[in-house]
């Protein structure tokens, strides 16, 4: 079951990259997000799954589709010709093997540390408080950046 979901995830990510139409790419990315959220649910990570669906598949994709509709479709796929596609599986295999080797080595050093006590809310508020402060700061910074980018200047008037 999980293998099928992973294949659908990879397939929708590939179509998001290689489709000519940007709108179809964005829709394919939404499918990838939903499949990823289902995988999260299967791994007992319900909160991450909810965030993936509501924020990534919802909010970010709405932003993407709004920007695609505000900009003219350029139609053609603008791809550099310097990278022969036949090398793609070879380099991908090297990348995957290196990733597995490095991450498996790193995994042995991670402490499993009794994090399953209590609820997720307690863990988030009591042990990861600094993360929450950082997230608030990042959101504030994002809002300020967007407001400053859309501020009307002399050129616009």
């Amino acid at each position, binding site marked *: 079951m999980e293998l099928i979901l992973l294949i659908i995830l990879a397939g929708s990510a590939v179509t998001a*990259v290689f489709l000519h139409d940007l709108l179809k790419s964005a829709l394919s*990315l939404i499918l990838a997000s939903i499949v990823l959220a289902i995988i*999260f649910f299967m791994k*007992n990570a319900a909160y991450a799954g909810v965030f993936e669906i509501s924020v990534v598949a919802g909010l970010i994709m709405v932003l993407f589709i709004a920007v695609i509709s505000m900009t003219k479709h350029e139609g053609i796929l*603008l791809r550099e010709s310097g990278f022969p596609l036949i090398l793609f599986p070879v380099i991908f295999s090297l990348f995957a093997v290196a990733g597995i080797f490095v*991450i498996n080595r790193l995994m042995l050093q991670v402490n*499993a540390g009794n994090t399953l006590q209590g609820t997720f809310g307690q863990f988030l508020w009591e042990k990861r408080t600094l993360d929450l402060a950082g997230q608030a700061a990042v959101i504030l910074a994002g809002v300020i950046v967007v407001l400053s980018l859309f501020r009307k200047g002399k050129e616009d008037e």
Partner: protein
Amino acid sequence: MNNLTLDLVFAAGLVFLGLYCLLFMRNIIKLLIGVEIIAKGVTLGFISGGFARDSVFLAQCLVITVIVVEVSVMAAALAIVIRLYRHNDSLDIRRLTRLKG
């Protein structure tokens, strides 16, 4: 091949696909799609690692942080894309040479 290794293969594949997109695409929106795909690979790696090491709570906290940062980055980047499109009337990354020295 156990579940963790399988997940890590697909996570590495997603990161590689995103890097490929960043390196070889010219459309700015496609580049942002590449960033999204890299983030998906990273979050899949986090959750799989957390599940395998019995630290799902910690993995979820990290994933939520990654998603929040991703939202801010995307909002700022898409706002920049709109400004650039109004200036250059194109989404081609190679036309953005005004800052070139």
